[in-house]
């Protein structure tokens, strides 16, 4: 049977969220609302030192004065911040020594996600720090890592055990007052991951965390801090799936990366929060602030595959502060039904001979809106800087939209900036060409979409590429072979 673009469109529209389920775990949830009392209570619950409590309170006070931004090209009902519960943790608070002690319900959840801890343990050296509703419940391979001096733990553990590191770097890349959501996150972040790679160490395995939103009506405020000391290397993976919910859920994470001299950080994300049903009901609001700072000769590479969330607002950025530093951004954003994505990057060139590459691929289907918004800023001291940006959009059907908002600011005459963008649909002649060579239409579409996003998929680490392909399959089923 011939598979046409029309059918693909139909399939995309009716595609339901596959990972939509709720795990019944007793959760320890705060009552709704936000006040100084709540911030203090969160801090107390996390057994945090005084300076951290104060740090949160400063953020909270700043947040209270801020207004929700509305410049992004997305439309949604503004969340009521007093209707959100700011803390939710699985009830049993003991740390698990072995998997037997873990709530079997929770293990089942992981199995449904295809990331059972058992399997992960055996699999090619991926240490998983699983976060369910904000509190880290399982950490594997921590021992192996600690032999190398690598610290990989939850941020609340880090605040207790390595306060000097956290104190030095938290908020150094994304100040608390940076924006509305980073301020909110700084005030109420419940948990997240912390990673420190010592000088000259090459992290032997891919570090990864899986995030999930589970409890109904809970906001998720993750905080991730990755520090790569001089000459070190780390590849960090982050992936997420969320259960099906009708109520809009808010996710406002903050990720800070610090690459000291000669270090390299590779940060990959696969995001598949619940996108809402095909009528645009429900879905996650994903308002994330991600930023990294590059010192001399260092490199930060962001790779993201965005397939989920009802509304995405995300700009992983690089501040190229040190000379000869490199920033990279590779992104695939797929939107379907009523999803809206406003995503892109910022490359701030400060140091000399800094280089940045931006490759962004947007695929919109159904009634979705997909925007690329990026900034390339070359300061006058950033001599001989180089930027290359490419943002391509693929449209499926005439009810969706693709938008590009690139900001390019150059202040010196030795830098070279190139930007190009194109928008198109899957060409009839492309399909015809494939058909002629005996490739049926379904395969042809798969081939074209695959080829369209290949440049980005190639950048994902092996372990993650499989998962990414899986998610692309869910979002564009029938088109990816």
């Amino acid at each position, binding site marked *: 049977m011939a598979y046409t673009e029309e059918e693909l469109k139909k399939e995309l529209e009716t595609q339901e969220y596959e990972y939509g389920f709720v795990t019944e775990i007793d959760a320890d949830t705060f009552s709704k609302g936000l006040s100084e009392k709540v911030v203090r209570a969160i801090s107390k619950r996390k057994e945090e030192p005084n300076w951290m409590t104060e740090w949160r309170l400063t953020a909270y006070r700043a947040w209270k004065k801020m207004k929700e931004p509305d*410049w992004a090209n997305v439309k949604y009902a503004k969340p009521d911040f007093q209707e959100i519960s700011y803390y939710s943790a699985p009830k049993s608070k003991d740390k698990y020594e072995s998997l037997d002690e873990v709530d079997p319900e929770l293990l089942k959840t992981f199995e449904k996600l295809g990331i059972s801890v058992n399997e992960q343990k055996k699999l090619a050296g991926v240490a998983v720090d699983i976060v369910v509703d904000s509190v880290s419940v399982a950490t594997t391979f921590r021992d192996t890592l600690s032999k190398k001096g690598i610290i990989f733990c939850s941020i609340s553990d880090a605040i207790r055990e390595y306060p000097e590191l956290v104190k030095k770097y938290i908020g150094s890349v994304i100040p608390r007052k940076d924006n509305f959501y980073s301020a909110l996150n700084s005030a109420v972040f419940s948990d997240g991951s912390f990673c420190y790679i010592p000088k000259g160490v090459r992290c032997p395995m891919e570090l990864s965390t899986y995030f999930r939103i589970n409890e109904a009506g809970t906001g998720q405020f993750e905080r991730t801090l990755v520090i790569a000391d001089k000459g070190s290397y780390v590849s960090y993976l982050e992936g997420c799936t969320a259960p099906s919910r009708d109520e809009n859920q808010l996710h406002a994470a903050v990720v800070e990366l610090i690459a000291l001299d000669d270090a390299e950080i590779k940060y990959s994300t696969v995001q598949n929060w619940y996108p809402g049903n095909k009528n645009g009901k429900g879905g996650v609001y994903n308002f994330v602030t991600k930023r990294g700072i590059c010192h001399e000769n260092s490199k930060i590479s962001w790779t993201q595959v965005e397939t989920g969330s009802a509304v995405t607002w995300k700009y992983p950025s690089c501040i190229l502060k040190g000379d000869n530093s490199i920033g990279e951004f590779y992104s695939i954003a797929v939107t379907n039904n009523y999803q809206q994505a406003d995503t892109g990057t910022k490359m701030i060139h400060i140091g000399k001979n800094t280089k940045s590459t931006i490759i962004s691929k947007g695929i919109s289907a159904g009634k979705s809106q997909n925007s690329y918004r990026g900034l390339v800023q*070359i300061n*006058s001291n950033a001599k001989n800087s180089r930027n290359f940006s490419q943002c391509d*959009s693929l*449209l*499926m*059907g*005439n*009810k*969706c*939209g*693709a*938008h*590009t*908002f*690139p*900001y*390019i*600011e*150059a*202040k*010196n*005459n*030795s*830098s*070279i*900036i*190139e*930007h*190009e*963008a*194109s*928008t*198109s*649909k899957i060409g009839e002649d492309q399909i015809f060409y494939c058909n002629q060579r005996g490739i049926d239409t379904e395969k042809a579409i798969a081939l074209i979409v695959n080829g369209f996003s290949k440049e980005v998929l190639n950048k994902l680490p092996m372990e993650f590429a499989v998962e990414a392909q899986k998610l692309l399959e869910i979002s564009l089923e029938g088109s990816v072979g």
Partner: protein
Amino acid sequence: MQLTEKILSSFLAFELDIDINSYVHNLRTDAIKNFEKLGFPNRKLENWKYTSLNQIIKEDYTVFSKKKNVIEFKKVKDYFIDNIESYKIVFVDGYYDPFLSQTSHDGLDICIMSAALSKAKYSKHINKYFNKSVPSEDSLTSLNTAFSKEGAYIHLPKNTILEKPIEIIHFSTGNEAALMLQPRNLIIIEENSEVEIIETHQSLTINSVFTNSVSEIFALKNSKVDYYKIQNDVISSSLVDNTYITQKRDSDVRVHTFSFGGKLTRNNLNFFQTTPSINSTMKGLTIIDYNQLVDHHTLVHHSNPNCESHQDYKGIYSGKSTGVFNGKIIVDKIAQKTNAFQQNNNILLDDTSTINSKPQLEIFADDVKCSHGCTIGQLDQDALFYLRARGIPKKEAKALLTYGFANNVLESVKIPELKIKIKNTIAKKLGVSLGFDL
């Protein structure tokens, strides 16, 4: 803000001079209310993010020049195109100058706005077209509408191919310490007609001049319009040029903007494609230095299928100058088979200049070809070396490369005499003369 207040009070004085019971005056009163509400744009607005009017509107402008100055033709001869027969519509300090002008009513109308607004025989067209294509939310356009009184009025009936180009020139003589000018042009080109228009704003003094110009152009079925904007004013003048172009089926409108001078030049160029099968072309060449700022904001709204738009803007910047480019292409759901291309290339000659570029696409249709490209760089060192190795001095070699860079825009100028004039201006700007034709 002082200037805002002055403008609002001037409006009352302005009303004494004109027929306040007309249709147009209702538009004026609405517009001044709108301006009062919005005020001058500031940098908090996305469209004015990179361009600040603060320095400009600080000055104490005279909103209307009280006196009419007379200037001799031989003094301003250089500002007209040499060796060419043309219609001329000339304004001095905002007033029409009949001695320098050469208008026509021979089956067509090449005349002035004040006549069009007051005479009954024009009212049909004024009611149909005047202020019909401008958005209500733009404060500077509203300001212009409120004070709309003088400017060029051009109306070509069906099947008229104009042999001679039309020159529209606005002179300011410095009879006021600081003068604000608000010319308003209305250009209606009917079916199968063709026209070439050259518009220049020229200050003859070092007194400040702030021009807030609005042009409405209606290109009806199968018409052709070539519009050249020459912006090579003195450093004390600033220009905000708002152009709204409404096109009908099979029409072809091409706007060329040459920005070489002025303290601040802001071009808001808007194309509305209201029927299928339309061609719109925008070309721009900017060469500036000495703290100048040139800001190009273009908008092409593709609201119908099978249309095309081409944009090509080149810029060369040095000496603390700032270039801004914001090109917006909107493709509506029904505008299938749209081809929209946008290109913005910039050269920075030194470290003190800045370029802010934002090529923007908003696309809602799937069967389209839209692309934009933007580059910022410098003259190719290898090419420079190649030329110098062949005995061409550095300055000339640089000029040659610059010419080459700009040539894409230059070559589409259809009037040979104008082309020569622009080339000479570029040569002067670069301080070299290439003894050959490109």
